[in-house]
């Protein structure tokens, strides 16, 4: 075997340009498969990460009547925060959020919005809630970039909001946009206005009430609390999973074609090698190699393309992949229409498993493609072969 490898290596290097072309194409497959998969992983990671940081934490409890798709349910979907969570909230491991319906009146237009109450001192979500503590004559509020765009609001703008308290009494006041944040999480931004929890509870006459409870620690066993529905993280990120699944499925076809291309080159090379090197084959047999061993020799030789390609991929691909992971790849996908969390720039995430799987996949495929034409050797008549007679 050792000899086979040595021979294969010499043969390949000796072929010069032809080998290097094959190796280059094959190494493309490595780099592109790893890169695209990395982008996918990165996307998955980023989307869930952004959702975690701006919306869902490690999971949530929803008031049993809360339906994110039906704003009319908001009037009924709140209740006092269960006593069982008081401690967790006090420790800063859970935040209570109250969501109510309201209207905002930028430039005399009326836009329906959801007013969200959130503790300004919370540390679970990255929303810059500390800005809700700004001392002004108007109520400080923060909004997301998407909301700012649709309502044409800027930081420092004053705008009137109107809502009805729990009794149905109208109330309206001026708010000051003290900060605009950008989260890549449409559901956290579109038509959402964040106010201090205490302020909103007072405004609504709903002290201690909340609609959603977001917790930071996923590992703690989660009790069932009557009136509240536990929504673990994986349930809340299901849309992202589905999206990634489709895109991954779509990409795997691309890898397939790329690999097919590389295999075309290997196959062509192998067919020619066997055709041209009949004398050599005859010699091996004459020297006492079994035909199986000769087939093995040629298979190893073909497969070695993959090994060389892996090395080539390391030389130029590794810096590329690392550079990508650092500066990111701007992903041409806009899913904000579907209310999903996708950033425009993604940072690929490569896992050891991904790299190993890719190497294994490419090497195995190469081995198979190298073996197929080599089977012909087994059918050769060694004497004729030795004489170089075409068979």
């Amino acid at each position: 075997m050792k000899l086979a490898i040595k021979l294969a290596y010499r043969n390949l290097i000796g072929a010069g340009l032809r080998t290097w072309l094959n190796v280059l194409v094959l190494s493309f497959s490595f780099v592109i498969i790893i890169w695209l998969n990395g982008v996918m992983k990165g996307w998955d990671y980023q989307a869930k990460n952004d959702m975690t940081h701006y919306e869902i934490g490690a999971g949530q409890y929803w008031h049993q009547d809360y339906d994110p798709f039906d704003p009319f349910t908001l009037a009924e979907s709140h209740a006092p925060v269960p006593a069982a969570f008081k401690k967790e909230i006090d420790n800063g491991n859970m935040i209570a959020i109250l969501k109510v319906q309201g209207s905002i009146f930028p430039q005399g237009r009326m836009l329906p919005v959801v007013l969200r109450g959130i503790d300004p001192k919370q540390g679970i979500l990255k929303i810059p809630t500390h800005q809700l503590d700004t001392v002004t004559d108007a109520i400080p509020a923060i909004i997301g970039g998407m909301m700012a765009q649709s309502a044409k609001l800027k930081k420092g703008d004053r705008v009137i909001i109107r809502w009805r308290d729990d009794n149905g009494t109208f109330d309206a006041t001026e708010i000051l946009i003290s900060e605009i944040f950008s989260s890549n999480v449409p559901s956290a931004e579109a038509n959402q206005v964040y106010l201090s929890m205490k302020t909103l509870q007072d405004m609504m006459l709903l002290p201690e009430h909340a609609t959603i409870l977001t917790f930071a620690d996923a590992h703690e066993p989660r009790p069932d609390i009557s009136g509240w529905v536990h929504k673990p993280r994986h349930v809340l990120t299901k849309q992202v999973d589905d999206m990634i699944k489709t895109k991954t499925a779509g990409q795997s076809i691309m890898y397939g074609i790329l690999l097919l291309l590389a295999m075309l080159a290997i196959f062509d090379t192998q067919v020619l090698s066997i055709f041209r090197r009949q004398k050599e084959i005859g010699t091996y047999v004459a020297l006492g190699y079994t035909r199986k061993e000769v087939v093995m020799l040629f298979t190893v030789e073909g497969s070695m393309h993959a090994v060389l390609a892996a090395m080539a991929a390391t030389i130029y691909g590794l810096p590329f992949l690392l550079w990508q992971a650092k500066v990111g790849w701007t992903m041409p996908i806009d899913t904000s229409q579907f209310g999903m969390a996708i950033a425009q720039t993604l940072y690929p995430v490569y896992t050891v498993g991904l790299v190993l799987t890719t190497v294994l996949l490419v090497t195995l495929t190469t081995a198979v493609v190298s073996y197929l034409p080599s089977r012909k050797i087994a059918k050769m008549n060694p004497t004729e072969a030795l004489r170089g007679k075409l068979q």
Partner: protein
Amino acid sequence: MIKFLLKGLLRDKSRSRMPVIVVAIGVTLTVFMHAYITGFMGDTMEMNARFSYGHVTVMTRAYAEEAEMNPNDLAILNTQELLDELNTQFPDMEWAPRIVFGGLVDVPDQTGETRTQGPAMAMGVDMLSPTSREIERLGLEKSLRSGTLPSSSGEILISDEFALKLGVEPGDQATLIGSTMAGAMSMENFIIAGTISFGIELMDRGSIIVDLDDARMALDMYDGAGMILGFTPGGYYNNDESIARAASFNETYADSDDEFAPVMKALGQQGMMGPYVELTEVWSVLISLIFILAMSLVLWNSGLLGGLRRYGEIGVRLAMGEEKRHVYGSMIIESVFIGLTGSVIGTVVGLSFAWIIQVYGIDISGMMEGASIMMPSEIRTRITPPDYYLGFIPGVFSTVLGTALAGISIYKRQTAKLFKELEA
């Protein structure tokens, strides 16, 4: 000379068969790949086009300002006149007036009292005119889960999940309570013809599809439309072209200061589609380039191999006194034929594959197990004009280049050694 070379190629299969097959396969892959990338990348964009933005959209200026709120009080009121104008100015495009509005679906019990109610997003599309392609465009036939598509006015489609929530089935009656474009409450009775599922949670939760004329009736907007979507004939979005169309249309109204004058916007000029369109283009070009490069390398290699394959033959020819330059020249010409033949075959085969997948799609539902069908469970290719010539770049150019490089070795061969080589 050329005739002679062609005969040689045709008769000596070893000279032509393998190289042509390799070139053909390579070109097939390149063409198919490009069509695939275009389809795959454009998927989300086309979905947005079909459902919301068209390739271009015509709205009133005031509507365009608040388009995301679907302000039907600012809708187009002279739709037919505008359609005639659009058809004259852009005879190659298809136009689809739509009305998107919110309402409440109210289901009566036997006594006519309200049994259940639920908020709905309604889309008024032309489902009944024989010339309308809206049913196909929205994939309604495919999305149908039960019942049938509406066949007469007064029939609607309702999202499957919503129907379940309301406890209604095809054949049941429901009242749509909405407000007219003037803001008055309006009620309209409908028969549920069928239930649909789009696979997008937001839409599946509570959407209904109403025939355009019914929507006009319900909203009291005779000859009105919230927007008129325009679709380019190939069914594929071309950003530059669409922006140019929009500009030329808007030119007509440049002098008007009427806030209800129509304005045309390309897909890439609406909502958040702008950056997406640009990125899709960049991405497609990048992936295609990588592929063409890889393909070129493979075919270059194949050219080299072809040269090697004929090592002996060339030796004989040189030994017989044929000039090196002549041998080299004939090899190049032969490779042009091989490249062309392979490229033509490859392009035809690649386009056929691409066409099949464009029409039938690749079902990836197996890979989507456990996923709510929120994403298309099919991948489709999309054939665009570049597919007709793209394959020739690696197909001809790289094959010839490979042969040219391999052929250089002809000049290195020494006549004196030829016989020795041939003996061996």
